[in-house]
Every structure is written in structure tokens, then in C-alpha cells.
């Protein structure tokens, strides 16, 4: 199969069906609600207690001046654990969930080509990651706007931009964060092809993310840090400078693309040869 017809127009119905399955599932909606709580709680806490004395994430102090900073603070707060956890759950479920309910055999007998099934699953997971990130960002924007008001944004480099361009920067930040989660999506998809127990795939994926984050924090391993998929996650701060220094951002995107390619290939190799006995 050439990459051109990997997902054709005929597959859109299955993509839509898959998106509906992922986005209407109660557990997945509950995770979005929990993610939405993060900016809400941070915003309310700061409103009640004041900006504090400079401890905590660098954006925290600026929130009282401009509600837009709640968007960035919430993303910094949810990116290490909550966002990858949500993506781990959805991606771990993807193939293993179908195997455990037995629906995998019927999808393949429909027939859905195995490679196409993986492509459809990956698309749905990435869309969920995007929705999760945008949920955090949008709730951060709304809560920040209501509690602290939105105004011109003073960038980290000192320049001030208007609300319109500031919102564009916020959107780019959210998209960058969602792109950082694609590795988790592909990793979870691969792990999900290895087992018929969704919970095992979910936890294995989440644990892998945490282990990589720990390795990224060990100074003795600094030689490999550049190539760990979590290393560039917080580089989105570069988008809040003027001019934007694209180097770290491109590095982050390139590293994710590499990992996505590797994990997708592993998932494909596993899926293509797998005896479906579930």
C-alpha cells in the first residue's frame, strides 16, 4: 500500500466513527473535565492568595497582570503528567481495547486493512491530544479573562504585543504542546498492539513517559537529553519571545517526528504479523 492511499476518502467514515467513539466515551470526557479543572483551580487559588513571592513557574507571577498567562501556566502545569496521562489512557485503549472486547476481529474481517486500522487509531488519538490541549488552553483563557482580564501581552523578551497577536501566540503554544504529545500517542498505539489488556497498555505508556522525564532530569545523562522525547516539551516558551527563536521548537518537532516514525513502524510490524485470537 502506498502512503497516498493509506487513508482515502472511503476511510473517512471509519475515522469519524473512531472519533465519535473516542470523544463521546464518558471516561475520556471525564479526563477532559479533570484537565479543565487545572487552569480553574490555579486561577482561583491565585485570585484568592495573590501572586505570591516569586516561587513556582515563571508565568505564575504575571497572571494577576494578564489573564492570558493562565493559559501558559496551565499548560506548564499539565504537560508533565496530566496531559500525557490522558493521552496514555486513550492510546493504550486503542488496539488493546478492541482486542479485549473482541471487536478487533470484526473490524479486521469487515475488512479494515491492518495498516489502515493503525492509521485511523493514530489519527483519533492525536485529535484527542489536540482536544485535550485546547481544553486546557481555552479554559485557561476563559478563567484568566474572567478573573484577571485580558490585556496587551508583555513577552519574555520585553516587547509588548496586542491582544489579537497574543491570542495567536497562545494558539501556537497549544498546537506545539499537542505536537509534543504525538510521541506519547504513537508509543501508546504500539504498546496497545502488544496486549489484550487495555489497562496494561495504558500504564506501560504512562510509566514510560515518567521514566523518560526522570532520565531527562538526571544531569549525568545530559549527553542524551537532547534526544529524549520529553526534553523539548517546555520549549514553547520560545514562542513568547520576540523574535521567536525557532531552533529549539524545530528540534522539538523533529525529535517527536522521529519517535512517531519509530513507534508507528513498531506498531505496524507487530500488527501486520499478529495472530488475532481475541
Amino acid at each position, binding site marked *: 500500500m502506498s502512503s497516498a492511499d493509506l487513508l*482515502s476518502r*472511503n*476511510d473517512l*467514515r*471509519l475515522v*469519524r*466513527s473512531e472519533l465519535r*467513539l473516542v470523544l463521546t*466515551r*464518558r471516561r475520556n470526557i471525564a479526563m477532559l473535565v479533570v484537565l479543565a479543572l487545572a487552569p480553574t483551580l490555579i486561577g482561583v487559588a491565585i485570585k484568592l492568595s495573590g501572586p505570591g513571592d516569586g516561587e513556582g513557574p515563571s508565568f505564575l507571577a504575571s497572571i494577576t497582570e494578564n489573564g492570558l498567562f493562565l493559559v501558559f501556566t496551565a499548560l506548564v502545569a499539565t504537560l508533565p503528567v496530566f496531559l500525557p496521562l490522558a493521552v496514555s489512557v486513550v492510546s493504550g485503549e486503542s488496539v488493546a481495547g478492541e482486542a479485549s*472486547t*473482541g*471487536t478487533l*476481529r*470484526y*473490524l*479486521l*474481517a*469487515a*475488512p*479494515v*486493512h491492518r495498516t489502515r486500522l493503525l492509521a485511523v487509531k493514530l489519527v483519533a488519538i492525536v485529535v484527542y491530544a489536540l482536544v485535550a490541549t485546547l481544553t486546557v488552553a481555552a479554559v485557561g483563557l476563559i478563567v484568566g479573562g474572567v478573573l484577571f482580564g485580558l490585556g496587551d501581552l508583555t513577552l519574555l523578551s520585553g516587547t509588548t504585543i496586542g491582544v489579537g497577536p497574543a491570542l495567536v501566540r497562545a494558539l501556537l503554544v497549544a498546537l506545539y504542546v499537542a505536537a509534543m504529545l504525538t510521541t506519547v500517542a504513537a508509543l501508546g498505539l504500539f504498546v496497545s498492539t502488544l496486549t489484550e489488556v487495555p489497562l496494561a497498555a495504558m500504564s506501560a505508556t504512562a510509566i514510560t513517559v515518567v521514566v523518560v522525564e526522570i532520565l531527562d532530569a538526571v544531569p549525568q545523562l545530559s549527553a542524551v537529553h537532547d534526544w529524549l522525547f520529553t526534553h523539548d516539551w517546555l520549549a514553547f516558551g520560545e514562542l513568547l519571545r520576540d523574535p521567536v527563536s525557532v531552533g529549539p521548537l524545530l528540534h522539538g518537532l523533529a525529535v517527536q517526528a522521529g519517535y512517531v516514525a519509530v513507534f508507528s513502524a513498531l506498531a505496524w510490524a507487530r500488527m501486520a*504479523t499478529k*495472530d*488475532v*485470537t481475541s
Partner: protein
Amino acid sequence: MSLTEARPHSTAVGMGAQLVTRGLTKRFRGGQVAVDDLDLEVPAGAVYGFLGPNGSGKTTTIRMLLGLVAPTAGRSWLLGQPMPGAAASVLPRVGSLVEGPAFHPYLSGRDNLRRADAADRTAEASSSARRVDTALERVGLANAAGKRYRVYSLGMRQRLGLAAAMLRPRDLLVLDEPTNGLDPQGTREVRSLVRELAAEGTTVFVSTHLLAEVEQICSHVGVMSVGRLVAQGPLAEVTGATASRVRVHSRQPGDAAAVLHRLGLTGVAVEGDRAVADLGAAVPEQLVAALVRADVAVEQFVVDSPTLEDLFVALTGEGFDVER
């Protein structure tokens, strides 16, 4: 109806056979041979009963036919096309029920069928709703279509599985234990549904361990035992093929036995006041005449034709016990 006679180990693929395997073998990683050198042949228009005790390799065979499990050796064809190579063009014409129904528990019956329909990229999107409703109607689930699958009873789940298999007009239905979990009424309905589909020209391959099911709906039968196909062909032929026995009740059983022996019958024996032998190709009327001519007083002359159950036990040895 002229049907291609199915013979194991024939080399040519039968004319118009809708499901064919040659030397199909599956050895699982543990070394266990689940299916051993299987030569199936299901003629067009047949309702083929794939009979075997639990664990005899029926489901593994079906999984190989549908491309879910890769065979260790051997080949298979569905609707004349090689599998799994031609899966994309063949499987949309094949409805299947494999090892029971399986659906998403938190979706409704209708939404589950919509998803099954969406998975078939050759199905027309605009007529999806109509297909789904027709299928639900046909299995009697129209009123429960909006309920979540998780609250469905076992029988309703089985019906939904059949509805998915019948979403589109199919040329071949592969049904694994289709009446499993159904009450007597549901069982009757499913069997009449299968007859109906067969009458419309669909070839049906139905695996079962229920002999009554085979006797009621099947035109052909294949019997599996420990991974091997031990008999195959038109139902009447297969049940007739195993030796019918002749039983002569007489006060001179020894003389009767001698006559039968002289006529070339095999397996001649005296059991109390009766002589028994394999009928073979002999004609019962001529046997009686010969006995009378030899002055053997015949009290009763009986030809015991084996029932499918006798045949099944004879072929599979242990009957319904799990052999491994």
C-alpha cells in the same frame, strides 16, 4: 441441485466451490497443532455444517479463513479468490460471526452496527442507515436498537452479531455457533433465517457442535476431530458412507452367518440369536432371498443405518469430550 462432490485431497479446486482449503495447517507457538492438513470444499449454494467437538480446531480454521490468523502451511480461497491476499475485495462479500458476537458495550445496538458498516470501505455511505435498520429488523432487534449493548441479553447479542453479518447481501456467510445462547424460539428463528438466506443463494458455512442443527439445516457436512477433517461431503452421502449393518434374527444364526459370509459380506459375526455383518454394497432384498433359499428361517431382517450421532461418535472417538 447439482453440487460438486467434495473429496479430501482432490487436487483441482472444485468448480464453483465458494470456500476451499488445501493442506491448511496451524501450529501454535507452543507446538500444538490446532488444525492439521485441512482440505475443505464448500460448494456454491450449500449449507455446510462444520461439525466437531469443542477444541477440534473449528474456530482456528474460521480465523484462518478470514485472515485473522496466519496459517503455518496450506492455502485457502474464499469465493474463488486467494485469502488473505484478496481480503479487501472478498471479505465485503462475506458475512461472519466468529466465536460469538463482540460489540462496544457502551454504544447502542444501532450505533454498533453503524460502526461495523463504516468499517466496510466498499459500502455506500448514503444508504448506511437503511442497511442498519433492515438488518436490525431482520433479526427482530428493531425495538431494542437504541439500547446500549451492555444491557442486551445473550440472545439479543447473538442476534446483533447476525445482523452485522447480514448488513449487506453476502455471497458467503461464515457462522461460528450461530445459535449459541439462544432460547428454543430464537434457535428456531436463526435456523429458519439460515434456510432463508440459503434459499436466496447465499452459501453458508456454519460451525456447530449441535448434531440436530446439522440435520435440520445442512446440505453438506464436514466432521473435525483433533484438528483433522475426518469426513466431508453431502450429508446423505456422509451418513450413508459409514457402514450400515445387517442384522438377521434367526434360530440358526450360524447358518445365517455362513450365508452372509458366502455372499462376500465383511465383518460377519454371530451375536446370540442373530447374525450381523456390514451391508457394504450388497442389496438387502437379495440377501433375504439368498437366506431363504439356503433354508435359513429368518425371523427378522434389519438394516441399521447409522444416525449422524453414531457417525459423529465413530469418527471423533470420544464424542463430546474435550480431547485436549
